[in-house]
């Protein structure tokens, strides 16, 4: 029996740190009774920063942990992205002057718990661990989603999120139980070995796997499980949207990619078609759904669905270039998402962040720098070189072509042009239309974050090597 000491829990360090900080802050705020506790954000930021910097690659763990929890290069890369996004969203949530500030403590604590859950999800190596992580991630998010108590739209969005999220978790659990029932194993590798060892795959196993994938697809907001995304993204508070769109999506996609490309890779023939379909439908939904939108957040919701579809193309490729492209895409996607939400938050109309795209009319005349950053991020989301978004799409396309998924790649490319239309339309509204409603630049942190991500996206083409090499190294762990 392994004796438990702190050093032996090395691989769990980030999650333990985050959960521990959350509990500490919980006690602190309970004792002080102060909703706007000043120490919360710095403490949480410190915890997240340490989690990013000190997340272990491999590392000590007792056997019972290692069975359920894997740390390798890929999970490290994914977790770093998640923690970084969470840190950014935490800073984004710091209210600007004039905004309500009575829920900061609760938001911070719940965010930390959710991020801990996300860490578990990314590293999950077995069905129970994955379910635990998913629930730990989701439950605080349901609460965060409805945090704006007096806004009926937020309550509605949060309720939708909760109901549909609970449903998808239920589907997942049912599928997991079917898989366990038919295979008798819980660990991913064990399941894969068992399936490969059998003469054929039983219907129960297939049904179980389909349900598991459906549950995960909901989290990724991959079509056709994406219906909740526009409503929820629009209704909840914008920093929460940013959190969902960045950390939430990256977690789900990173896990999905790892699950399929590591233990389930030998079964490529079984799942490739399904992922191709998910990818195609997501890109289609993302491209077509956003065309008619007038609300910024809904448009960004559909845009994120489309991007998830592109990442799924990299997963569907099923080769090391695919794994690498997934990581590169997620990293660049994170920067673009944080950037664009920072800008949406950095501007305030008369009551809150601009909801309608038309509120941005003529922004280029009144606030040229913000408009420029917005344009850079929008063109990057559209995938136009030399911006970072282009490199993300290029890597995925190379992986798809290498795997022979040429029709999917062509579809991806055509749908990129379709989606370019609505990104460029926002640029047009900012630059070509005469100035409209007055928008005021708000909290400086948001402005700084927008500048940082905008410049990263702009200057990426000059030095893409660090990110690409890091992704390659991380992906190499899956494909020795």
């Amino acid at each position, binding site marked *: 029996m392994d004796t438990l000491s702190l050093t032996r829990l090395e691989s769990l360090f980030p999650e333990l740190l985050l959960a521990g900080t959350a509990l500490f802050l919980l006690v602190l705020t309970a004792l002080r009774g102060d909703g706007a506790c000043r120490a919360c954000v710095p403490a949480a930021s410190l915890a997240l920063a340490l989690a990013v910097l000190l997340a272990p690659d491999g590392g000590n763990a007792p056997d019972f942990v290692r069975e359920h929890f894997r740390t390798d290069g890929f999970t490290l890369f994914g977790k770093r992205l998640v923690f970084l996004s969470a840190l950014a969203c935490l800073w984004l949530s710091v209210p600007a002057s004039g905004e309500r500030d009575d829920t900061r403590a609760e938001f911070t604590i719940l965010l930390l718990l959710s991020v801990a859950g996300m860490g578990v999800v990314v590293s999950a190596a077995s069905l129970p661990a994955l379910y635990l992580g998913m629930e730990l991630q989701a439950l605080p998010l349901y609460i965060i989603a409805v945090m704006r108590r007096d806004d009926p739209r937020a309550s509605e969005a949060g309720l939708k999120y909760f109901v549909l999220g609970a449903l998808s978790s239920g589907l997942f659990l049912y599928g997991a139980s079917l898989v366990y029932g038919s295979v008798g194993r819980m660990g991913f590798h064990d399941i894969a070995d068992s399936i490969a060892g059998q003469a054929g795959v039983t219907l129960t196993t297939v049904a179980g796997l389909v349900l598991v994938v459906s549950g995960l697809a909901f989290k990724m907001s991959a079509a056709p499980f994406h219906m909740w995304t526009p409503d929820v993204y629009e209704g909840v508070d914008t920093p929460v949207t940013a959190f969902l769109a960045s950390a939430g999506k990256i977690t789900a996609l990173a896990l999905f990619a790892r699950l399929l490309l590591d233990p389930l890779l030998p079964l490529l023939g079984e799942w490739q078609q399904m992922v191709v379909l998910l990818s195609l439908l997501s890109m289609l939904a993302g491209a077509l759904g956003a065309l008619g939108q007038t609300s910024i957040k809904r448009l960004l919701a559909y845009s994120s669905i489309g991007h998830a579809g592109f990442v799924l193309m990299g997963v569907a490729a099923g080769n090391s270039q695919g794994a690498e492209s997934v990581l590169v895409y997620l990293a660049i996607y994170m920067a673009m998402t944080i950037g664009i939400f920072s800008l949406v938050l950095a501007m305030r109309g008369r009551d809150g962040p601009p909801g309608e795209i038309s509120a941005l009319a003529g922004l280029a005349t009144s606030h040229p720098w913000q408009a420029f950053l917005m344009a850079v991020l929008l*063109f990057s989301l559209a995938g136009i070189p030399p911006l970072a978004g282009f490199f993300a799409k290029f890597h995925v396309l190379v992986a798809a072509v290498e795997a022979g998924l040429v029709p999917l790649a062509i579809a991806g490319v055509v749908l990129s042009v379709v989606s370019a239309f609505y990104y460029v339309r926002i640029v047009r509204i900012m630059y*070509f239309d005469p100035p409209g409603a007055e928008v005021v630049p708000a909290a400086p942190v948001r402005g700084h974050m927008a500048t940082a991500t905008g410049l990263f996206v702009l200057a990426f083409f000059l030095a893409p090597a660090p990110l690409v090499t890091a992704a390659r190294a991380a992906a190499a762990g899956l494909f020795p």
Partner: protein
Amino acid sequence: MSTGWPLLSLLVFSPLGGVLLLLLSAGRPGNTDLRARRIALVSSLVTLGIAILLWHRFDPATGGYQFQEQAEWLGRGVAWRLGVDGISLPFVLLTALLLPACIIASGTVRIRITEYMVAFLVLETLMLGVFVSVDLVLFYLFFEAVLMPMFLIIGIWGGPRRIHAAFKFMLYTLLGSLLMLLAVAAIWLETGTTSIPDIAALAARGSLFGESTQTWLWLAFLASFAVKLPMWPVHTWLPDAHVEAPTAGSVILAGVLLKLGGYGLLRLSLPFFPEASVALAPLVLVLSVIAIIYTSLVALVQEDIKKLIAYSSVAHMGFVTIGIFSFSRQGIEGALFQMVSHGLVSSALFLCAGLLHDRLHTRELARLGGLAAVMPRHAVLFMLFVLASAGLPATSGFVGEFMVLAGAISVSGPVALLAGTGMILGAAYGLRMYGRVMFGTLADERFRTLSDLCPREMAILGLLAFLVLWLGIFPGTLLEIFQVSVPPFPDGGLPGAWNAS
């Protein structure tokens, strides 16, 4: 041959230095607009200076790439490779020359001058980047990146229907280019490198791709270049874009951006896919002939000067594609010469039309007439450029078209004949337009008070006229630069010897 300084990187990024200065000076007190114009002009002249230095140091006896630079970039065969050879150098010079002209010609732009200048300087960086890229992915990056500044230029400072034109331009070009991206990915996977000379060498050695693969890849590349050139029938974005763009925007669009397509065909399609190029040449030749004749006929009935010139651009580009796909030395050199000549002539024509529009606020032939009496200097220069566009001997327009026809005859008599008809139509619509605008009775008594060319306009148009005449009378100046890097083609036309190293 390489020097101590990274001359090409300096060339490509020098306009960005101007952008930086512009951004820094934007907030300062004082006459922002005038300062912005001055900074932009100085920056573009600095770039021109570097380009001329490059020309001066260029070794006219070496066929391969010179001033090469290479740096690690994306890894696994994709590197930051720059280089210039006999084919790209004239285009570099053309770009560097036209930018200052554009900036000087932007006198009538009244809104958001700083951003206007920033857009043009960024555009210059990207265009220069295309011509000096020796890496396929880098080429693609710069090639497609020009969409952004051009979209903004048309959309912000353009005419009444500018938004429609800007969107059409962007989405049309984007679709074609993205199909090319897939082909780039396929090539990278197949060869393990994206160095243009290396891939060309591999292709020359023997079938690099299977027959059907090569055809698809060639078509994907064509999708992109055909929209850029533009070729019929994907040319419909051009008239709108040209008419709605501001004068300087039209100048740079016609002068340089259209050349990116021809350059791409010559630099990439022919060396990489020799068999497919030969097999599908008839397709290109047919489309080119249709382009020449059809668009010339359309130009003949145009009532808007800029639209007429736009259609004539499509016709001229038809000559370029015929020249390239004649797979003969004369044809290809003619196509290259034609591209440079068209860059000068078309730019000048758009400048002349822009002058009229600025003074008269109309471009419609019906409302113009008899202007030669009122603006004699403009009339003379305009005449020169119209005749150059029609291909009059002693102007640069003649040399290019003549060489293209000579090359075309070796391939197909009918093609040459039909293309020659295009030349006649070119004279027809050009002279019709000129006659309606310049000759006859003065259309409106208010025109009598119009001012002729001011010194600024005189300078640019004079310079362009000088170049057009010089290249018409001494074409060797340009041809000797091209000739170095265009390899001899064996009879029968397979461009297999194409591997500048």
